[in-house]
């Protein structure tokens, strides 16, 4: 199914909004009967060819501060517009005088449901923290507790990155191992480094003071010297609190040389590691010092901490495991049994760093490359709340890291469009309530009438902070319907409106405001499900369910995800399926729902639900990406796409089933985190014999090449860069494919299912067919 999905053009459209239900049930009760929550997945700054950028400030409603949009009713003669959210009448200001039915400003064009305002910098917009475009800050934090080879990979990646930074970008550099070293780049006499001990937790003020950036430094100094020195000149008082930051952060153009030579000299951490112990690595303190350092930068300046982490934190606060190698890093089992002594404290520690960063409007990116876990599970919240990027790889020399890292700094087409200081506000029609958002953002706790009483994710607010966001950042907004049914006499207002206001600082430092206004219809499903069914977006629904269930797994102890999914799927099928009671064979699903059970089947088997196959770090990583990726990417994570290549057919989607394997086929599996090219046995033999090199077998060469090219296409657009696995049937790496396939053929039924050249999967998992059978049976039972 993935293939058609891919082919589908731009389901998000200019709005960048997709909802589980296009038509909303009118009442809370009805909504809950729909099983799948009403939710919207939005990409707040999704680029679109038709997107207009207006060089002036938006008009806002006097009372609800919603922005003028195509759904406003406009009185051209009186030059008045009526806000669709609060029905307030607003006058157009003077410069809109020439407005007429034929002369509309862009924001009133009905096809510009999304529009962007570029806010002149001198203007003081309430949400605009930065009066001036300040260049973004990149603070690199490099772990040095690794073998030399790894360190060299990391250093060369940094070297390259620094060369790619815009000239005016401010750069800072820290390294850490047992201790944290903050490199003062602006000191010309010699290399200068501030060293912090890895074992001691420091507050932001302490960090600033110790770096000589504190305000309080002067105070204390004064007291000391005045008494002691007897008349020595007092310390110069005129120094502002931030004046010293330039010692640590310099424009890339000025410090490139310094940084490069510094990297040249940088060696692996020198502190001795006792045999049988892990390196002493103080990731926690390093991050808190980094956060503290950035705290000295001007408020509102976009900044990211780019941390390259090579292993678990073992020293000081934020440690995730003991130094002794014989203690393994916590597993899911340990977490379940509460047998991870470091976990809670570390989580709390990183959460605090996250909070601090959010307050400062800064981003934490983590690039972890290690064979062991590094503590992503603990850092997850800090990364996610700040909108940071995360890449988990096995080595700094691996393309997953190298290419991903490069992408951050790339310009132009490939650019991720990394933006800073985003704020999302949601205005909605009466009766629509916002429960919260799952995704890379933090609640700003801005209460309002549209805040729902139940909270999902970051809730209790109508505004969210996104310290870092990019083109593909995606948020899932959960809506609720007001419980007051009576207030809305039928037919009075069949439409509901939702407006998303995203202000952010674009990569070039400009402040932008993206306004997206969407409308949906209320439907009264007392008449039947037809409207609802037609308005169901099963792909979005699958992703939303996946995100929601992951969220519940994290916050609800002892939550049984599989059972929850099954129950909801059955409820859904019972409600929307077409069947005769108690007759499984009569069960039918509308095409709008038909793919959903399969999504659920794959979701149940996915890494999101079956966490025990992964480390907590991996799970955290997967979930962060699940929550922030676009719907189509997220769908691929849940249910990979499989394309088959063969001599006698065009490349085409294949069933995600073990039976798709054939000796004369090449399969290309995209499971988001990895892309697998799988050569059937015969193909592999041919290839090993080198037929592709012979001119008469050009066709074979093309056949071999085609999946490679397609894989590159996938890889090119994706961040993080997926791991590319090229394998042959029966090879050890084939497990990457087999794990994702429907086990229709297992050792239990091998003899009956096996067709020539196919494969079996050694598992006890049920196959899709069995799953569907059960589903039908249960769905038709009396509810």
């Amino acid at each position: 199914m993935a293939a058609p999905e891919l082919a589908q053009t731009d389901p998000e459209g200019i709005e960048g909004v997709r909802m589980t239900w296009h038509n909303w049930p009118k009442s809370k009760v009805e909504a809950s009967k729909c099983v799948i929550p009403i939710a919207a997945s939005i990409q707040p700054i999704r680029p679109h060819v038709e997107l207009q950028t207006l060089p002036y400030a938006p008009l806002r409603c006097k009372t609800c501060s919603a922005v003028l949009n195509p759904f406003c009713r406009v009185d051209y003669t009186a030059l008045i517009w009526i806000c669709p959210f609060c029905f307030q009448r607003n006058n157009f200001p003077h410069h809109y005088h020439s407005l007429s039915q034929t002369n509309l400003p862009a924001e009133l064009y009905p096809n510009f449901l999304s529009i962007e305002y570029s806010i002149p910098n001198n203007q003081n917009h309430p949400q605009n923290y930065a009066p001036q475009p300040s260049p973004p800050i990149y603070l690199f934090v490099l772990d040095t507790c690794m073998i030399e080879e790894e360190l060299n990979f990391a250093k060369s990646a940094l070297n390259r990155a620094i060369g790619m930074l815009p000239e005016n970008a401010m750069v800072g550099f820290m390294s850490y191992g047992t201790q944290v070293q903050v490199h003062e780049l602006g000191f010309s006499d010699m290399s200068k480094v501030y060293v912090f001990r890895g074992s001691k937790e420091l507050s932001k003020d302490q960090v600033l003071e110790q770096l000589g950036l504190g305000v309080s430094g002067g105070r204390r100094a004064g007291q000391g010297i005045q008494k002691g020195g007897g008349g020595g000149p007092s310390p110069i008082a005129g120094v502002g609190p931030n004046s010293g930051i330039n010692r640590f952060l310099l424009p890339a153009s000025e410090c490139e040389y310094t940084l490069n030579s510094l990297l040249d000299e940088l060696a692996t951490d020198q502190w001795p590691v006792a045999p049988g112990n892990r390196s002493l690595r103080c990731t926690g303190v390093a991050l808190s010092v980094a956060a503290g350092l950035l705290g000295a930068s001007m408020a509102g300046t976009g900044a990211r901490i780019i941390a390259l982490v090579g292993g678990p934190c073992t020293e000081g606060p934020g440690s995730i495991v003991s130094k002794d190698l014989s203690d393994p890093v916590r597993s899911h089992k340990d977490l379940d049994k509460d047998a991870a002594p470091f976990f809670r404290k570390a989580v709390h520690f990183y959460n605090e760093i996250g909070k601090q960063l959010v307050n400062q409007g800064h981003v934490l990116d983590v690039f972890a490359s290690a064979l062991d876990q590094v503590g992503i599970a603990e850092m997850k919240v800090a990364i996610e709340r700040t909108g940071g990027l995360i890449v988990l790889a096995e080595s700094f020399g691996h393309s997953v890291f190298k290419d991903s890292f490069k992408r951050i700094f790339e310009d132009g087409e490939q650019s991720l469009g990394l933006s800073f200081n985003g704020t999302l506000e949601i205005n909605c029609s009466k009766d629509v309530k916002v429960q919260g958002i799952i995704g890379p953002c933090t609640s700003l706790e801005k209460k309002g009438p549209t805040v729902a009483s139940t909270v999902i994710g970051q809730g209790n607010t109508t505004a969210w902070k996104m310290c870092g966001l990019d083109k593909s950042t995606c948020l899932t907004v959960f809506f609720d319907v007001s419980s007051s049914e009576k207030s809305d006499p039928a037919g009075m207002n069949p439409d509901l409106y939702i407006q998303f206001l995203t202000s952010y600082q674009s990569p070039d430092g400009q402040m932008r405001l993206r306004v997206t206004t969407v409308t949906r219809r209320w439907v009264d499903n007392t008449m039947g499900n037809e409207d609802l069914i037609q308005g169901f977006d099963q792909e979005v629904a699958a992703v939303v369910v996946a995100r929601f269930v992951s969220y519940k797994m994290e916050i609800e102890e002892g939550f049984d995800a599989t059972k929850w999914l099954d129950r909801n799927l059955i409820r859904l099928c019972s409600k929307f399926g077409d069947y005769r009671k108690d007759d499984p064979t009569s069960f039918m699903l509308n095409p709008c729902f038909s793919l959903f059970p399969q999504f659920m089947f794959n979701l149940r088997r996915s890494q999101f639900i079956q966490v025990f196959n992964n480390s907590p770090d991996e799970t955290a990583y997967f979930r962060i990406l699940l929550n922030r990726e676009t719907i189509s990417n997220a769908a691929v994570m849940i249910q990979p796409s499989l394309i088959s290549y063969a001599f006698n057919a065009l490349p085409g989607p294949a069933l995600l089933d073990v039976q798709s394997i054939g000796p004369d086929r090449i399969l290309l599996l995209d499971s988001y985190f990895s892309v697998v090219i799988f050569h059937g046995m015969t193909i592999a033999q041919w290839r090993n014999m080198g037929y592709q090199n012979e001119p008469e077998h050009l066709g074979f060469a093309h056949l071999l090449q085609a999946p490679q090219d397609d894989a590159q296409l996938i890889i090119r657009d994706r961040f993080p860069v997926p791991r590319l696995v090229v394998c042959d049937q029966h090879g050890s790496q084939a497990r990457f494919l087999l794990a994702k396939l429907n086990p229709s053929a297992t050792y239990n039924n091998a003899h009956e299912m096996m067709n020539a050249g196919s494969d079996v999967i050694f598992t006890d998992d049920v196959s899709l067919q069995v799953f569907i059978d059960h589903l039908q049976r249960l769905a038709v039972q009396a509810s």
Partner: protein
Amino acid sequence: MATPGGPRPRNFPPNYNPNALANNLQNLQVSQPNQQHSSNLGGNAPRPPNTTPFGQQPPSFAGSRPGPPPPGVFPRGPVPPSVQAQTTLPPNMVSTRPTGPPMGSQPPPPFASRPPPPGALPSSIGGHSALGSRPGPFSSSPLPSGPSAPSYTNTSGPVGNGPPAFASGMIQNGPRFPPGVGSMPRPAVGPPQSPTLLSSGPSSHPPQMRPGFGGLNSGASSTMGQPGPPFSGPPQNMPPPLGSMPFSAPVPGMLQSSGSPYGMQTWPPHPQQMVPPPPTAGPMQQQPMFGMPPPPPLPNQSMALSQTGQSKIDPNQIPRLAPSSTVILHETRQENQANPPPPATSDYIVKDTGNCSPRYMRCTINQIPCTVDLLSTSAMQLALLVQPLALSHPSEEPIQVVDFGESGPVRCSRCKGYINPFMKFIDQGRRFICNLCGFTDETPRDYHCNLGPDGRRRDAYERPELCRGTVEFVASKEYMVRDPMPAVFFFLIDVSMNAIQTGATAAACSAINQVIADLPDGPQTMVGIATFDSTVHFYSLKRALQQPLMLIVPDIQDVYTPLQSDVIVQLAECRQHLEILLESIPSMFQNNRTADSAFGAAVKAAFLSMKSTGGKLLVFQSVLPSVGIGSLSSREAEGRSNASAGEKEALKLLQPVDKTLKTMAIEFAEYQVCVDLFITTQTYVDIASLSVVPRTTGGQVYYYYPFSALCDSAKLYNDLRWNVTRPQGFEAVMRVRCSQGIQVQEYSGNFCKRIPTDVDLPAIDCDKTIMVSLKHDDKLQEGSECAFQCALLYTTVYGQRRIRVSTLSLSCTNTLSNMFRSADLDTQFACILKQAANEIPSAPPAQVRDQATNVCINILFAYRKFCATVSSNGQLILPEALRLLPLYALALLKSNGLRSDGRLDDRSFWINHVSPLPTPLVIPLVYPRMIAIHDLEEKASDDSVIPTTIPLLSENLTDEGIYLLENGEDCLIYVASSVDPNILQQMFGISSVEEISNQFILQQYDNSLSKKLNAIVNEIRRQRSSYLRLRLCRKGDSSGMLFFSYMVEDKTPSGLSYVEFLVHIHRLIQTKMA
């Protein structure tokens, strides 16, 4: 320094010979003419400025430089080359480059020339004559001269010393005699002198010589042997030194003598003579009490205090120091008996014949009382002053190193005493009896040797450990808990605003930069460097780096080391980086606006980085530590505003403010880190608190106040140089063992004590003395001997583990008079001084003063009561050996530490300075040496470099005179009001007294007067192993006041004059008697 130092350390390694160090010393830099080329710094030997040809130096010195080490370049022979260069520079240069390198120095060519001062001996020796004798001598010598002399003599300083006889006629001769006389001023010289006198002139009449000085005289005579015929024979113990017996030859002869090995002696302690300077009428008048009337003849040791007291005292006759100019040859044992040592302040050469040299260990009494009662009756105290690594005289035999191989030195199995010449072998040598605990041990098989007919082992004379009082054993594995540590030198420099602006940082960096070249060579030597203000900055000196890397430790409440390695690196690997770094530090911090100083944190951080090895931490600190751990407050100001709180509060200011630094220091000591503190400041820095660190870790405090980059840079350099090049050891443990019946009561000095029996010394050097007080725990047998053994286990700078064992065996006595006769004045006084210093922070000043006075009175009283035969009530009777005790006691009362009007830091520094002070430096500290220098010309070159000394009485100063006064630390040059401008011009390059500024640098001008002055100063520096802080003083301002504050014999508003003090004492004794 490289150049001059020819003999650098490398020589010694294998057999470390203490004398070698002397070599180091050589290079001390002494004053110089301005030389400094800044450019020069690098390493060439900037120092020696002298124009004077070095050639002249007596060759003998060159290699063997004797003991005292002055730091810098001392002109020793080799020096020469660079000199020229320097001289060329215009004097002004100096100013431009204040920080400059130390100055070059002049070589005092004449070392040799110094006549050996025998002086001191007499008194002590004399003692023996004791009772009976005392009256004799004195009485014999009439003091007649006293009175008569006065009028004339005084003018010429030198002359004064003489007995009146000279005075009368001779003055003019001045040049000739004076020198001669001066050198041998006091009685001590007795015998030799006479010849001199004779030859020199008519004037001499032997008898006179001494007459004046009652006590002294006697001393002299005694020295000789017997009182009676004083001059007749040389005392046995004073064997004429070598052939060169100084005295024999007339003045000129002296020079010759110089050829003799002893170029260097320690400074003769006793300031010269006693001259009675009766001279000027003016002054005289003022003190009517010293009546001119000739006092009755003094009995020997007794002072003629007439009953009525003062009026009877003739100031000219009262006991004063007798400078001796002769080198004494001292055998530590003769005729199987301990030989009482010469005065600590005299110049002597020791031959170790069984007992250790008195340089290493001396006892307050050279015969041990058999019982406690006897000891308490005498009122004297029993203590040892131990200076285990003391410098020896170049002519002395080096200490022998004995290697017992794997098994280690032979030791008593019970008390662990080390084998020594007094262990008695019995039973054909199969067993031996320990002289310390009396236990009988089996002789190890491979150490067995048959006994000879004399009952001694046949190999006794071949084995140093059986015939020498001091030997050094090679330590075997069992003496090492780890490999011997490398020689680690960590420099920690204050770069706070104040330090930068006063030039202290630059001075420190420049000094370090030059000193690096003098650090021991080889892989053993490791160096680290850090700077600090309100944070601590380390530097990674690893060679691979293109440039040093600065590592800042900002957490000054809770410090840590920023790197595990690379902060301390082998010197050989980082020399260049280090030089670059040191050159750039001052400019790097040029605009530093941080006024705070995190001293405590910096020291702690540096310690942490040295923790794994231990070593020396040299800290240059300029302001009161104001932040971080161990920060201090300006207590002084608080104390002042709080004056009403009274003495108790005031006392607290002399104690450390809290335990923080003490706790740190104990930890440092535990990890063998020794801290030396160089304080270059303009303000109060609370030395009372800071000094705890060096004190506890075996280090010391250097104090430059008020610091002047111009004047003090050279001293800073020389101090630092001496600090790192002098003989020293690391990770040392010391224990003193005593024979049964005596035990150690307490140790005191700069060290850390964790267990009562041992003293832990993270570092120990040749200048550190430890006082060991003893107590009886049993009776001793008369006629037996009581032994003391000091064992010091340490690591040399070359990484060898050694045990230096010094054994002193003294006879026991039941007779009080023997005790008095064998009392050691210098040692006793040193003990009194150190005890007083220890008391100061915890007792009110008045109480400390009373205590010190009482110690003195009690001793004199005991003597008076039990030993003196003379019954005249009116006489103050002084034991021969202790006759100067009252003078020293008086000087002590007037010293910086006991005066309550001084600055707090000055007092604290004094207290600290005294704590490890070696015996020979104790006396000059309280009773400085003063000489006249305006008439150097007249004295020509016919004498020792240093002219005769003048008693510290302001009457002795003339209006035309220029006087130099030094106490081993400071050197004041006082220019009186009507000095010949010509002399001023020649000496200081100024034309009038008014031009004297606070910032004084001694330069060498091209004239003989200036050269002589430089020679003198350099000689003093050499003797004191210290580059003196020079200051020019004139009457009428604070500098003059300072100078006059050293006139300890004067009457002052708060203190008695010497004569008054004697009277005072006498009265108290009389009261007691009654």
